[in-house]
């Protein structure tokens, strides 16, 4: 699929060269369609996303209405996966849990990107002492166990979903700082950046018009992996009772509530567990598939 990459000696026209760079970055996604792990990952992610999006507008059953008479029903056409200890439809609960997971992880990864990427670009652009201080501080946050940060924040500011979002967001920041900085540094020597500077463009403009578009692929790949981590973190926090609070549903909370019933209703734990596995696997495979393609050697093999 990918046309033969333009080697540097042929790179006479800087404008053309940048377009190639940029085109190449988007061609990954076309190439990716040939990677099995990417396709599987994308399919699983798509499944979870679809369920989560549908859950925003519609659920097969009203899960705010508890009906003890209907509890522990076996799977049927009415209740696709049966009902839980309060008579709620498990399938609806899982859909609603997917919604919670996706909203939390999207916002958390969003926080990481919105704060992390500018900081990373700043570090790459400034270099020198800023860069050193900045990155060491970044390492510090990075080294701190992420779930511990989350527990700290939620226990100080209370048990609410928003605090879980912030906590998960915070540990996404250093990841994006690194990716943005690394990506930007690799572009620093490029002629088109020099040309842009010669043309009189300011730092900000160069960053926005030339650097950012060229590292977008890296960021998207990283975001996909971070999404899976955020889903796992949200499930973990909710399992500990620090995330979603009633009446919100979450897979982690479902796991927590079903633990003592595992001897007679194991499906209550297995189903949300599977949902977590599917979504983490999905986003991870998708991200890993994309990342493999970024490796030039691998890319050649795939193309």
């Amino acid at each position, binding site marked *: 699929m990918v046309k033969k990459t333009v080697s540097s000696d042929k790179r006479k026209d800087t404008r053309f060269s940048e377009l190639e760079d940029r085109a190449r970055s988007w061609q990954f996604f076309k190439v990716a369609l040939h990677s099995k792990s990417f396709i599987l990952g994308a399919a699983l992610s798509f499944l979870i996303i679809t369920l989560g999006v549908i859950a925003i507008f519609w659920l097969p059953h009203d899960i*705010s*209405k*508890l009906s*003890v*008479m209907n*509890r522990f029903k076996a799977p049927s056409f009415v209740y696709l996966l049966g009902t839980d*200890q*309060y*008579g709620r439809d498990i399938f609806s609960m899982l859909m609603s849990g997917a919604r919670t997971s996706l909203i939390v992880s999207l916002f958390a990864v969003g926080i990481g990107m919105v704060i992390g990427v500018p900081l990373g670009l700043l570090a790459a652009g400034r270099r020198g002492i800023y860069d050193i201080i900045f990155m060491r501080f970044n390492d510090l946050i990075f080294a701190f166990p992420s779930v511990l940060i989350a527990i700290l924040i939620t226990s100080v500011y209370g*048990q609410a979903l928003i605090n879980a979002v912030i906590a998960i967001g915070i540990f996404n920041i250093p990841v994006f700082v690194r990716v943005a900085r690394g990506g930007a540094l690799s572009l620093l020597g490029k002629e088109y950046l020099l040309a842009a500077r010669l043309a009189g463009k300011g730092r900000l403009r160069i960053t926005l018009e030339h650097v950012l578009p060229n590292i977008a692929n890296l960021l998207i790949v990283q975001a996909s*992996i971070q999404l*899976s981590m955020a889903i*796992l973190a949200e499930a973990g926090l909710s399992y500990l*009772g620090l995330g979603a*609070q*009633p*009446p919100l549903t979450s897979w982690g909370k479902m*796991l*927590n509530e079903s*633990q*003592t*019933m*595992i*001897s*007679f209703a*194991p499906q209550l*734990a*297995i189903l949300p*567990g599977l949902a*977590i*596995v599917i979504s*983490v*696997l999905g986003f*991870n*495979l998708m991200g*890993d598939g994309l990342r493999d393609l970024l490796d030039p050697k691998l890319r050649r093999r795939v193309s």
Partner: protein
Amino acid sequence: MGQLYKYMLIALFMTSYLILPVKLAMANASTNSLNIGIALEPPHLDPTASAAGAIDSISYVNIYEGLTRIDEHGEVQPLLAKFWNVSKDGLTYTFHLHENVAFHDGSAMNCEAVKFSLDRARASDSVNAQKQLFKSIESVNCPGPYEVVVRLNHRSGSLLYNLGWGDAVIVSPKSANDNKSNPVGTGPFRFQKWQKGQQVTIIRNDQYWGPKPSLDKVAFKFISNPNAALAAILSGDLDAFSGFPAPEALMQLMTNDQFQVDIGTSEGETILAMNNKKGPLANLKVRQAIAHAIKRQFLIEGAMFGFGKPIGSHFAPHHPAYVDLTGLYPYDPQKAKELLKEAGYEGGFDLTLKLPPPSYARRSGELIASELSQVGINVTIIPVEWAQWLSDVFKNKDYDLTIVSHTEPMDIGIYARDDYYFNYESDAFKAVMEQLERTEETSARFELMKKAQVMIAKDCVNAFLFQLPHTTVRNAKLQGLWVNAPIQAIDLTTVQWSQ
């Protein structure tokens, strides 16, 4: 792909942890120590200064002793008082104390200590949570070092029972002020250590005046989370759990030979308490509507997995004076809506529901919030920690609705208290309680108790939900724990490991 495997491993680990709780209930018989779980951590360890039941669970007859005690069957037995005489007019009680009894701090237990303890508890500035227990006492005097004369201002049918409460224990004048953090009593166990948030440890008092207990060390561990409680029992970290918070797991434990499950009665009336002076809840019709919107059987099935008896007033169903008032406000959402309409709340309104940590409260709360939303009352659930519940709800009355179990025996009198957290005020009810205090004859007392039950049910002070069972899960080799809880206590004096 390395990361992927990491996640798969984590997922696998989490799942296997859930599915295969390691069943290693280790016999602790050789060491003669006991690890027992209770749901709530006490705010401190002075039973004469707080209503929190967890204090009595740990300390009653283990650390502290009173003149009398209440046994497993709810009967009064002598303890520090060997025996007593009652004068013909019923107004003078003479208690003869055991001699050679020492407090854990070495000071002697004598009439002076008894007089000090009782005077302190009934003083006007006393912080005792159950001052009504001492209301009938006019004076306490010491004709001899081991002789206590208690004079009453009116005949009382319940003095000996009242003196058996944890709130009436005898404390040492020397150490009374430090009992909150360093409890000193005359009991068979002495306080050793309190690791906040985790456990209180007590050890055998080798100088004990009476028969020595078999156990030499007992740790009370605080676990309110059902998952953690079940895991601790299955893994053998706990030898017993008093007030087991996971009723759904009881069947699983019953079928396991390593464990014994005792389901007894408790004095715990579980209620949906309402702030009778706050907003819409000040309106009787609104409170009645809430009562009509709740189906008790759903709560008992859904939150308690069938373990619990429905109640219609603040009274234990196993008491002979119990009146079944569960039919007074039957489950009827339509009626509830009509009542709300009559009260002028047709469009519904918002309430908060503060839930303390025990699982019966958290789970019932979810069900009740759902039931109330059916009649148009929008309930926001606020989970709170126990200390926060005691200060916000119980002390400062900053709440709309809450769920809690009142585990003191015969505690219908709390509805006569000024400034109690229900914010209920009824002179008629107070008069009945006053009369009950002065009545000795059993059938007349029962009539008054019945009257009182009906009054608070009609006033719909709270929504009365169910009687909490007293569930104890224990290692099958552990013997001697109470099956029923006629008073808040975990009496360890006769608990032992069988060989």
